[in-house]
């Protein structure tokens, strides 16, 4: 398929994954107010940092509001200039969808377009004011609807594979980031109930509450939760699960390769996944939780870069070189056509 279109599919899924994870995080934070008497500084500020926009927030909204839950929710939900706000991420998903509309099913397109039309209208603002939790849930459900509808109505061919790949790679990085946000500060000795609230919040932010207890019925501990979210092979939001997925998808994209196209992404993925497979929690602790998580986040970002290089935006010089190789092969050109 056309590289740019694959890029659109990849990013469409990444943006939607951002909507999904941020809406869920905010919903859990919003509810935390009831669960534990934590200061709003603890509840909200890390989310601004998570979206990488703390400086922007200080500059445009005001440093004094960094502990203000309402201001932060407003910013992370509606700010059109914040690239990862729910509003902007939904817009990004929809804009990408518009540029790849020709490979989508009507139903999949409508799932995204409806979300966008709703966000632009007044109904969404009203729901946001009256029932905050209901608003976040609706955002999450819209993304789940898209995944279900696209799976059920689209051809499971290359465009779909690139959507799934975008989602898997984004999710691996996001899960690591979310764990990082919930990690106790260095040297922090948390009180028991605060600690429990923290891990519950983490589980719920990853949609992992029930799956986790099916796997680990023992008393709740940070170690067990971390292990589950990093290494569980069958939980669909764990880091390793998503790298397994990414591997299967990446191998499905390019089965035969007569001209020796670049394969940096496979190498990058195999390296990251290989290392994680060798690790256990003791290694993580030895390395330090934060630095392990940062390494995972950085490695998924680099993986995305290599996917861009190999598939989504290959260098023209390389493609021109491939034409030469193709023409020198005796195999007819027709066989190398993309479907």
């Amino acid at each position, binding site marked *: 398929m056309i*590289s740019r279109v694959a890029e659109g599919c990849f990013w469409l899924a990444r943006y939607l994954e951002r909507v999904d994870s941020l809406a869920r995080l905010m919903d859990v934070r919003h509810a935390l107010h009831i669960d534990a008497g934590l200061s709003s500084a603890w509840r909200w500020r890390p989310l601004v940092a998570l979206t990488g926009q703390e400086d922007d927030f200080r500059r445009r909204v005001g440093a004094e509001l960094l502990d203000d839950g309402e201001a932060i929710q407003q910013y992370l939900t509606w700010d059109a200039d914040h690239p990862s706000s729910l509003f902007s991420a939904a817009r990004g998903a929809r804009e990408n969808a*518009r540029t790849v509309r020709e490979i989508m099913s009507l139903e999949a397109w409508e799932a995204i377009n409806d979300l966008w039309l709703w966000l632009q209208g007044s109904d969404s603002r009203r729901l946001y004011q009256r029932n905050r939790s209901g608003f976040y849930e609706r955002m999450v459900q819209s993304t789940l609807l898209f995944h279900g509808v696209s799976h059920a109505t689209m051809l499971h061919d290359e465009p779909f594979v690139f959507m799934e790949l975008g989602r898997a790679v984004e999710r691996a990085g996001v899960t690591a980031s979310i764990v990082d946000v919930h990690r106790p500060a260095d040297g922090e000795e948390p009180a028991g109930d605060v600690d429990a609230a923290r891990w519950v919040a983490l589980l719920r932010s990853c949609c992992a509450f029930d799956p986790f207890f099916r796997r680990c019925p023992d008393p709740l501990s940070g170690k067990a939760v971390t292990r589950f979210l990093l290494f569980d092979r069958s939980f669909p939001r764990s880091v390793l699960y998503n790298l397994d997925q990414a591997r299967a998808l990446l191998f499905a994209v*390019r089965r035969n390769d007569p001209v020796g*196209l670049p394969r940096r992404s496979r190498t990058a993925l195999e390296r990251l996944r290989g290392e994680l497979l060798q690790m256990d929690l003791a290694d993580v602790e030895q390395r330090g939780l934060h630095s392990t998580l940062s390494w995972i986040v950085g490695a998924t970002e680099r993986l995305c870069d290599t996917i861009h290089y190999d598939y989504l935006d290959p260098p023209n010089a390389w493609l021109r070189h491939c034409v030469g190789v*193709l023409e020198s092969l005796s195999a007819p050109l*027709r066989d190398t056509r993309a479907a």
Partner: protein
Amino acid sequence: MAVRSGVGSAAPGAAPWRDAPLETTDPFAAYQPPPDTYDEAFDRDGRPHPALSGVIDPLRRIDRTHYRRLQKLAGDAFLRGGVTFSVYAKGEGDLDRIFPFDLIPRVVARREWDRVEAGLVQRIAALNAFLEDVYGEQRILEEGVVPREMVESSRSWRPQMRGIRPPGGVYVHIAGTDLVRDGDGRFLVLEDNIRTPSGVSYVLENRMVMRRVLPDIGAGRVAPIEDYPARLREAMASVAPAGARDPSAVVLTPGPFNSAYFEHSFLARRMGCELVRGSDLFVERDRVYARTTQGPSRVDVIYRRIDDDFLDPETFRPESLLGVPGLIRAYAAGNVALVNAVGNGVADDKGIYPFVPDMIRFYLSEEPLLGQVPTWVCQREPDRRYVLDHLDELVIKAVGEAGGYGMLVGPRASRKQIAAFRERVAADPRNYIAQPLVQLSTCPTWTREGIAPRRVDLRPYVITGDRSWVLPGGLTRVALVKGSYVVNSSQGGGSKDTWVLEEER
């Protein structure tokens, strides 16, 4: 003109609006087309044209509230489906707008349509022969049937294309000829569009929405149009360069900011081919390749929705970022087919239009089957004198403009506007033609004041590969503003579903 309150011929229980209270008055009761105007639905005595009674009668039963509900359903379907164009709104970024849609269909009886169809096929054959000739031997210029200076002074004349014969000699793969009906109901050609005519996606989407919203009216008798993408795909395959088995075809778009982007995407989707931008393609060894996830991939046929000027910075505008450097080289080498061909604009130039009937006689030895509007060519001295003396009676059109811009409707213009056009015509006569004001036919249309006559035109689409095929019907554009003659969407126009209605069996 009063219309007798009709008793519906449709079975009462079958209509989706059966629960709506019957209006005590017929919504067509006050319907009154302007004088000297042909109405698409009613004759001069206020009776529906014979072919239409089965369509008009059920419409009489829809009351205003119910109509609004249906209209909202239709609007939502367009908006949700993304059948929109972007308009830039100050402070709000781009907004999606739908093309206004009127639910009352415009109906053409099959018998009338057959004549239109034959006329269109004939006209496109002549235009195609003209292009092959002017970019080849130039017989028609040698013999003085069309003045050479009119061709060579055309803004769309592309001398670079001389001697490059496109595959199969086909230049006009897709035509969207604008037709109007005069006071006597005769179809006349108003304008030829053989560069990159747009609008066909609305024809297909209008029909989809119509079937959803008013499923029972006309059912079973309306000529289907769903074949269009398949026919286009077939025509594209038929002009693929020799040796391309299973040719690869793409649609080339300027990108999502183009107002017709929806259509580009729609056609690619329905033809099952890739939608590409200039930056997705490159030329190597005079062949066109697409940048794909599997490496370079040959492209054989390009349905380009980019104007000639922007196609290839090596040949035309060097600053164009929309095109593909080297594309014309590949085209000249016969390694890629472009749909439509490059340089077609010289044949749909409004200054060439008056010569089309002579082209038909010259190339086909036939008399034109479709009439056209008498036209004065300001380039010619006697014509110019007449036009300048009668500006207040005529419609003046700039030959290089479209979309209803650069136009003076004399009978409806102010003195100041007329004076301004007098200067422009005198300064640049080649750029202007003049025509009498055609009383475009009217069609019943829902308005705030109820059903009222509004003026319409018709753009049928003709596809030509190894033969020509005419989409039954086409795009009916309607001037929604009372009294207006301008149907363009940029100036208050909307559209209607167009039905070619088979005879009742």
